[in-house]
């Protein structure tokens, strides 16, 4: 026999689907079947019972082999390297719960750490653009219920956010969009003819790295200004035509991804995309939404925001919070050799950071808190496997549109494994002890 658990939240991407159903064995230990999730989400749920799962913390030996230690020993080591460091980097936070983040922040306060999340190599440029020009946005339900013009710019939901299109943006049938995809015009702007582009009514193949020019041309066309014949590989008639399509829509939404946030121009691309959205509001209703990646990178920005006032790159090393991307951002700190101790949690910079930074992480004492054996874990001095948030422990998470959803526990973690919040709690206690402050 098995039992069905419903309303489960998928802890993979920023779409944060909350309609997953899972059959678990009667004893609540085995996941038998996953329903409604995409291929990536299903795999994440099923992976928890992988036989090669690491269930205890390990220290790396001189010869590169791993030696199993207890969680207490791992917590002591983590506390020590954070307290010993002049500028410890505490990076990641995007694949864990807000509760764990909060405990991490209290550690950061005491050790004078730099708290940075994966936005630093992802939508950090979006956050900077918001600080420049604001952001007119909406929840994904507004898209579902009202939007009749959808632009995907530099993002490929077919691969990165697989259920986004069916739940919110293309096929969903909402209150004012009863005909689903037939009620919407889909425009995809991408240098590559992606699988998402194949679903579009209009696919615009922008020349690589020239998004800024094209966005700028959209704004100009909207204002009725003359355009040269070709812009960024797109004929001007096409741009005028698209602008007309947008103006005639009732509700326009622009979704954008890493294709614009980390190509040439970075935050300036987003400035322009937001400015275009604002301008469109002179004619119709328009919103813009960032396709956030990790399931709780948005939550990390929120918790940092209400506790320290900044969404990422928060440097606490002077005893108060400072924010200055370029100076206080992980890669800049690592590349300049300023970091002398590192805690990585809920992310894999070993895979995502430039090699120069990865070498630095390898060279300094680094603790990696991650359920899986990742490239980051491989270059760390200490690897602390933890229970998976959203599967083996619940916790608050924020969807890409900032909607908070409380993720659920589905099955028990392997016996004796701690959650990241529990492990960070141990570290906080050790730090308190080292700092001689029992409060």
């Amino acid at each position, binding site marked *: 026999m098995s039992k069905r658990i*419903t*309303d489960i*939240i998928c802890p993979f991407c920023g779409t944060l689907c*909350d*309609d997953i159903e899972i059959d678990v064995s009667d004893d609540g230990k085995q996941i038998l079947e996953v329903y409604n999730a995409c291929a990536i989400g299903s795999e994440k749920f099923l992976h928890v019972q992988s036989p090669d799962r690491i269930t205890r913390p390990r220290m790396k030996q001189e010869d590169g082999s791993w030696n199993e230690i207890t969680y207490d020993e791992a917590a002591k080591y983590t506390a020590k390297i954070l307290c010993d460091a002049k500028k410890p980097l505490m990076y990641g936070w995007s694949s864990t719960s*807000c509760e764990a983040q*909060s405990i991490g922040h209290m550690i950061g*306060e*005491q050790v004078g750490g730099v708290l940075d999340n994966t936005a630093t190599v992802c939508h950090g440029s979006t*956050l900077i653009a*918001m*600080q420049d*020009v*604001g*952001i*007119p*946005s*909406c*929840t*994904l*339900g*507004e898209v*579902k*219920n*009202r939007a009749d013009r959808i632009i995907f710019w530099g993002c490929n939901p077919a691969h990165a956010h697989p259920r986004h299109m069916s*739940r*919110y943006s293309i096929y969903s049938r*909402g*209150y*004012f969009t009863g005909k689903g995809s037939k009620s919407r015009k889909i425009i995809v702007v991408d240098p590559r003819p992606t699988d998402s582009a194949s679903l579009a009514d209009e696919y615009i193949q922008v020349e690589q790295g020239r998004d800024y020019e094209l966005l700028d041309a959209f704004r100009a066309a909207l204002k009725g200004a003359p355009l040269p014949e070709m812009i960024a590989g797109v004929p001007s008639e096409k741009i005028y035509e698209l602008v007309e399509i947008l103006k005639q829509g009732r*509700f326009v939404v622009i979704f954008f991804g890493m294709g614009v946030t980390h190509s040439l121009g970075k935050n300036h691309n987003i400035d322009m995309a937001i400015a275009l959205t*604002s301008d469109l*509001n002179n004619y*119709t*209703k328009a*919103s813009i939404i960032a396709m956030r990646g990790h399931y709780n990178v948005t939550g990390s*920005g*929120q918790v940092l*925001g*209400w*506790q*320290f*006032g*900044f*969404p990422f790159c928060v440097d*606490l090393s002077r*005893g*108060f*919070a*400072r*924010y200055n991307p370029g100076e206080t951002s992980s890669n800049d700190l690592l590349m300049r050799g300023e970091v002398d101790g590192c805690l990585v949690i809920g992310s894999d910079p070993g895979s995502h950071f430039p090699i120069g930074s990865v070498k630095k992480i390898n060279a300094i004492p680094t603790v990696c808190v991650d359920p899986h054996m990742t490239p980051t874990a491989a270059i760390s001095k200490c690897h602390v496997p933890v229970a998976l948030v959203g599967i083996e422990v619940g916790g*608050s998470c*924020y969807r890409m549109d*900032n*909607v*908070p*959803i*409380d993720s659920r526990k589905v099955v028990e973690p392997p016996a004796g494994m701690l959650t990241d919040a529990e492990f960070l709690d141990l570290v906080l206690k050790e730090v308190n002890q080292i700092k001689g*402050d029992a*409060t």
Partner: protein
Amino acid sequence: MTSIHIKNGFVVDPAQGIHGDKKDIFIENGKIVKSLTHAEKTIDASGMVVMAGGVDIHSHVAGAKVNVGRNFRPEDKMQSTYEPYHGIRHMAGGTSVPTVFKTAYTYADMGYTTVIEAAMPPLYARHTHEELRDTPILDQAALPMFGNNWFILDYLKRGEIENAAAYTAWLLRATKGYGIKCVNPGGTEAWAWGLNCLSIDDPVPYFDITPKQIVSGLMEVNESLHLPHSLHLHSNNLGNPGNYTTTLDTLKLSEGIKPNNNFNREQVLHHTHIQFHSYGGTTWADFESKGKEVMDYINNNPAVTCDIGFVTLDETTTMTGDGPFEYHLNKLNHLKWANTDVELECGSGIVPYVYSKDVYVCGVQWSIGLEMALLAKDHMRCHLTTDHPNAGPFWRYPRVIKWLMSEKARNDVFASMKNEDKVRDRSTLGSIDRELTLYEIAQMTRAGTAKALGLSSSIGGLAPGMQADVVVYPYNPETDSDPEKIEWAFSHAKYLIKSGEVILNDGELVSNGNKKTYWVDVTTKPNRQVERDIDRTFVKYYTVTKNNYEVTEHEFMKNPCAVKIDAVQ
């Protein structure tokens, strides 16, 4: 600390009609008591004012839009004022939109112990509660927004008060909310299509209901549920010249509705930040105050309370559930604009704003707030707020108190304005010599607000049996005459006690207290139709499931305090 004796202070307590008499206050087990045989701590309040802890009825301190305000304004942090981590104090920073820690510490320094978050989008309720949970010291509650909610629009259009009430009870429970907030009724739903409702008779697109029906219906719902607080309203047409007629039309909707509750609440309508709604003229060129007209109406209608929303002449961050207003404000100042429309429920916008004393419109806005407060006849019904951070940050309350208590302080501001004559010409403030007393200030900041919230049996006063929220301000009403001393004293409470626990001792933070969060749990008759409507709407139109919508007390609230009401009959 279980027993405290505060002796020899000038006690100002409108809840008991005490006007600054020298009295002793005794505290035991978290409550005010008549007397003590032995006090474990004695506080000498000689030459100082003793009041109940402040109660803020309307402030935006937690939740989605507040956090957008923080995150999209790094320039608001002011590095030099960022307070370092020290002992039990967390790092605390932010100017117009402080972090949760700075919010709590600053309110404590001002002698406040209860702060109501004025606008909670239901879908974002969990976020609001996470921030409230992380805000130390203060007792809090949040008001979910109903005025553009599809269920409410549908039920009220058909006159189904009972269904609207059943849904309201469900939503209060699901969001752990305290009362009914209504922001720009119908206008924010219209804004989802880029439109607005500017009068109480403007129909809401598609839903075909008017703001008038929404406001009247929500007042009826509120009374049928016997809620502790009344409808908390931000009416249509905020911030526009000539809007006072809309405001008067709206206020008149309260006539004929009777308060029905067991919380000693006497009003049926609380109109918030009334200053923003009392404008005359037709454009910004002939902009003028209609504060007198609006306040005259409120003075004569005991079923209405208001808070002012004083403009403090600062750089700030405006944020409101009135999405279309923020769009239009951005069209005026062209600073950055953030907006979030929330599915089926509401919306919000955020725009930084500089109220410059040298811009005459800002000067007139400043004078309207003060004019209205000085023309008010009953300060139990006219409350002190800055609609934080919209008209100014909350930490300017002490300055507002100074202006209210000193004509000289007001004249100093007038004299510093570039357009003094023009500003003086557009309101009656310059001709008012009234100076409010400490008693009236206490009505505006604790006794009156607690009563309007339906909490007057436990907070806002110093009567035996009440929760021991007590503040001692270093101000001597017999000898201090410098208005600057007023501002200083009200921002530097000497002692603060919350629920019997010492929070500030000789001005030093000694405890983060034991905050609690109020919410209202109303039981109504089972209503199958509403249950079915909720189920169906979640399946068809929401992007979260119904089971993932509800905020649980256990995970998201520190010391949840449910006010239970039986509205079955």
